[in-house]
């Protein structure tokens, strides 16, 4: 399947609260094994099956405004 959407997560800014993970309807977010400089296991996208449609639920819930949501579409140029 083609990628419809994806997110970028500012891992430096992330505090590992998990609200995005909790909100993601596609379950494509998880905590990283790694710590960021603040010592948090930050959130990361793990979406091997391209399930993320860019619904932005994670964005809505992120208290630290870490998430940028992209949508990808085939469009006529």
């Amino acid at each position, binding site marked *: 399947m083609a990628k419809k*959407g994806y997110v970028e997560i500012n891992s430096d*800014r992330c*505090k*590992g*609260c*998990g*609200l995005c993970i*909790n*909100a993601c309807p596609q379950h494509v977010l998880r905590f990283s094994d790694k710590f960021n400089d603040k010592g*948090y296991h930050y959130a990361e996208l793990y979406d091997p099956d391209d399930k993320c449609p*860019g619904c*932005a*639920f994670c*964005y*809505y*819930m*992120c*208290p*630290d*405004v870490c*998430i*940028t*949501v*992209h*949508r*990808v*579409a*085939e*469009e*006529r*140029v």
Partner: protein
Amino acid sequence: MATVDKIVAQMPKSLSKVEFSYCPGCHHGIVHRIIAEVIDELGIAEKTLMVAPVGCSVFAYNFFDLDGTVAAHGRAPAVATGMKRALPDRIVFTYQGDGDLASIGTAEIVHAANRGENITTIFINNAVYGMTGGQMAPTTLIGQKTTTSPYGREPKANGYPIRMSEMLSTLEGAVYIERTMVTTPQNVIKTKAAIKKAFQAQIKGLGFSMIEVLSTCPTNWGMTPIEAMKWLEENMTKTFPLGVFVDKTKGMI
């Protein structure tokens, strides 16, 4: 045909890039973002003045890319009044916690509302004094344990959780008051609509508007961010029902 990559959601312009000082999962951050989005959408960033409170959001004036100041504890409505009277064509909003607004600042919010002061107040009710380490707030629930109600809030000694939205709704100058929460993407969207309406009321010069947002304080509640949201939904909403308490904006916005 080509693949087009569009950003559909990202940090709003009215936020500065300064990292929030809030604990992980704290709802202050969500509400900040919503406000910034509304300001961006209304295109009022260049004429908006913000008044931060004393509380965990004491740094808020730095988190927004707006002209701003921080008021003495509880006095944001008075500060905002001073600003608005000096510059009636600017947009002025206060951002206040429950200790700030419902305790020490009671007189100031009551009279700003009663004067119909043409400002907007965003009121973060997290049932606790966050910044100072989790003391009882006037909005603390009955039975809730805090550092100053270590045996649980008991009405005989400490009174009742005060419902500010309900109380302020009795005042003629209040034109729009709603209570919301931000525990799901759906109610984040609702909260945003409410905040937008509050700012629009001000833009139209209608009078005082306030949005009370029920919020979590995972740190002082001693819960994970997710637990805290559940607790909020299950307990706080019983004492503080969501809803619109006044709306005199009909047909005006």
